[in-house]
């Protein structure tokens, strides 16, 4: 039973509201990520769970126990810090044994537990080294082993991979998930890296401006973002503003036409959209989201009346497995991600491109504040 209940938690720093009324339940054995841009309050929330900060308001329960006013050393947690925070004056063995010695375990037990933890992160032969003699990735593993050695009820990870280079980070992500599943421990990861959060987590909580914007599985937050903030933070996005009008009538195929007033196509008319979803209009306006990878390219004009535009290429970057394009309409721009065409010649800035997409790919979004 190591569920975490966060109940109406707020935290103010003088006049700054770092966290506003966050309620959240993290389930037993779950890998949960707190994701958000810097300054969104995710570290504040983690520090409140860890006990380094007290909430201004609200209650935190861990394993059914109210820990709101308990100091960190009475919470039985494990934590991995961004800079690893290994004790430089202790060896790897002594670092991992640190929490066990505090618990006054016998020497034999400590030895067994440390060896077990080192085996978990595959660093058995490094027990006698000091932190400065290890690489970044190895220090990271020691930090994980140290946190897990005390058999905590919850593992907290504070941007643990952000100091590693890209390749190592990928490896460690995989390993982190692996270890977490083997140990089966409830884990909270704080990160600003959306890819990391999506690939590792069972569920993701997106924080923005001190508020919990959405909680959901990686699939949910990417495919069905709760609002504009989430849509723009998770991946890239094209947003179309549409106005309420008489023409919003369903076609026989169930598609409804809209005019994107934020975008004008080559005929200097609002871009015609056809969507299967019905947006909620607020003050006569609504938002549609279109992911860049859902847009398709054509090099010749197509006979389409909606979800189609003639555009001019502004920028292009080739990233190996994909092309990232930015194209201009008469008014407004679109971001497009498309697989590398391999044999075709790449378009050049200024080239005319015809773009189109399916009605199902337009996702109706709740407008942001």
């Amino acid at each position, binding site marked *: 039973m190591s569920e975490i209940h966060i109940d109406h938690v707020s935290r103010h720093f003088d006049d700054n509201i770092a966290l506003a009324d966050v309620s959240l339940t993290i389930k037993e054995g779950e890998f949960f990520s707190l994701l958000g841009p810097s300054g969104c309050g995710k570290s504040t929330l983690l520090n409140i769970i860890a006990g380094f900060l007290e909430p201004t308001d609200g209650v935190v329960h861990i394993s059914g126990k109210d820990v709101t006013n308990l100091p960190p*050393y009475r919470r*039985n947690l494990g934590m991995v810090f961004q800079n690893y*925070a290994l004790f430089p004056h202790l060896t790897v063995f002594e670092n991992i044994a640190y929490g066990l010695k505090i618990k006054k375990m016998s020497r034999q037990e400590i030895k067994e537990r440390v060896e077990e933890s080192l085996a978990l992160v595959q660093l058995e032969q490094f027990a006698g080294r*000091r932190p400065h003699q290890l690489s970044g990735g190895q220090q990271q593993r020691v930090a994980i082993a*140290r946190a897990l050695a005390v058999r905590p009820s919850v593992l907290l990870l504070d941007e643990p991979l952000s100091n590693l280079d890209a390749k190592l980070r990928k490896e460690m992500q995989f390993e982190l998930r692996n270890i977490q599943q083997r140990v089966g421990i409830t884990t909270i990861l704080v990160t600003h890296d959306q890819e990391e959060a999506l690939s590792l987590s069972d569920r993701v909580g997106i924080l923005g401006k001190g508020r919990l914007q959405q909680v959901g599985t990686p699939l949910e937050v990417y495919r069905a973002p709760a609002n504009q903030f989430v849509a723009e933070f998770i991946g890239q996005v094209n947003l179309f503003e549409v106005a309420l009008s008489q023409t919003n009538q369903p076609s026989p195929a169930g598609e409804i036409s809209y005019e994107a007033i934020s975008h004008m196509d080559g005929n200097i008319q609002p871009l015609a959209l056809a969507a299967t979803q019905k947006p909620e209009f607020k003050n006569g306006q609504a938002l549609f989201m279109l992911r860049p990878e859902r847009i398709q390219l054509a090099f010749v004009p197509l006979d389409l009346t909606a979800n189609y535009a003639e555009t001019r290429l502004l920028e292009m970057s080739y990233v190996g497995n994909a092309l990232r394009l930015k194209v201009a309409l008469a008014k407004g721009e679109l971001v497009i991600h498309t697989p590398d065409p391999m044999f075709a010649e790449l378009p050049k800035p200024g080239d005319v491109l015809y773009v189109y997409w399916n009605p199902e790919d337009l996702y109706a979004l709740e407008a942001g504040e």
Partner: protein
Amino acid sequence: MYTGTRKIYTLWKRASRMKKTSTKKKNQLFHWLFLLPTLLFFGVFLVLPFALLIKLSFQDVDAMLITLNTYSLSQYIEVFSSPVYLGTIWSTIWVAALTTVFCLLLAYPAAYLLVRAPSRKMRALFYILLVSPLLTSVVIRTFAWIVLLAQNGLINDSLLKLNVIQEPLSMLWNMKAVIIAYVQVMLPFAVLPIATSLSETHVNLRNASMILGANRIQTFLKVTLPLTIPGAITGAIIVFSLAAGSYITPLLVGGRMQPLLPLSIYQQVMQVFNLPLAAAMSISLLVLVFIIVGLLGYILKRWEAKMNG
């Protein structure tokens, strides 16, 4: 102070690397030109007198204590064979060591306060409070202790009036008074390097310790203290060498009869007029302090090597 010497060291390293350029000779000449006034000053007023002092310490005296032009180890033999002088050496080192220990004990809370000051303004204020005593003369600072500790001083007066004691306590003119005054005078020299060391230890290290189950005291003893040992040793080196060589403070609050080497040297020079013996005592004191400071420095180096490779 600690970072200060480091900075100078890196600057010096950089400067010595610069020499390897094509304008090497020109640069070197330039360096020496800049150094010349300082070198001359130190040569004439430090190295030369020191050499003379060493020479003097090996000279003999006659029955009337007139310095002779014959050389022997007789002065050193007297220093290290007389129970009185040996006792003096021992108590000098003991008093300096006690002062160092008390300074370190008091310096940690003060250093914490400096580093954890709630705002930048408060920190500046704490620094000013800490450093400002250094701007006044040692005589004045020590004299304040006489006002406090004397038979008719502030403390005795208050205690008498409160009927806590019937007769004034004699708190002045003993070693306790010397140590109290020493600690007060030298405390800033211990606080500053410890504060520097403290500010260099990352808050996450303390947090990591606490999340692993260690309370604040355990965290201090097992993480903060070991990690600030470099600062503590730097402070200890400064305080110890100052306390072993001070002369004004013990004279004012301890009186000239206290068994402390600087006072004995003063007596030999000004009252007994045995200059070679005074010189031998000075050199002995200097060598002893060098040995202890060297030992502390060695421990410091070993500790830093252990932590940083």
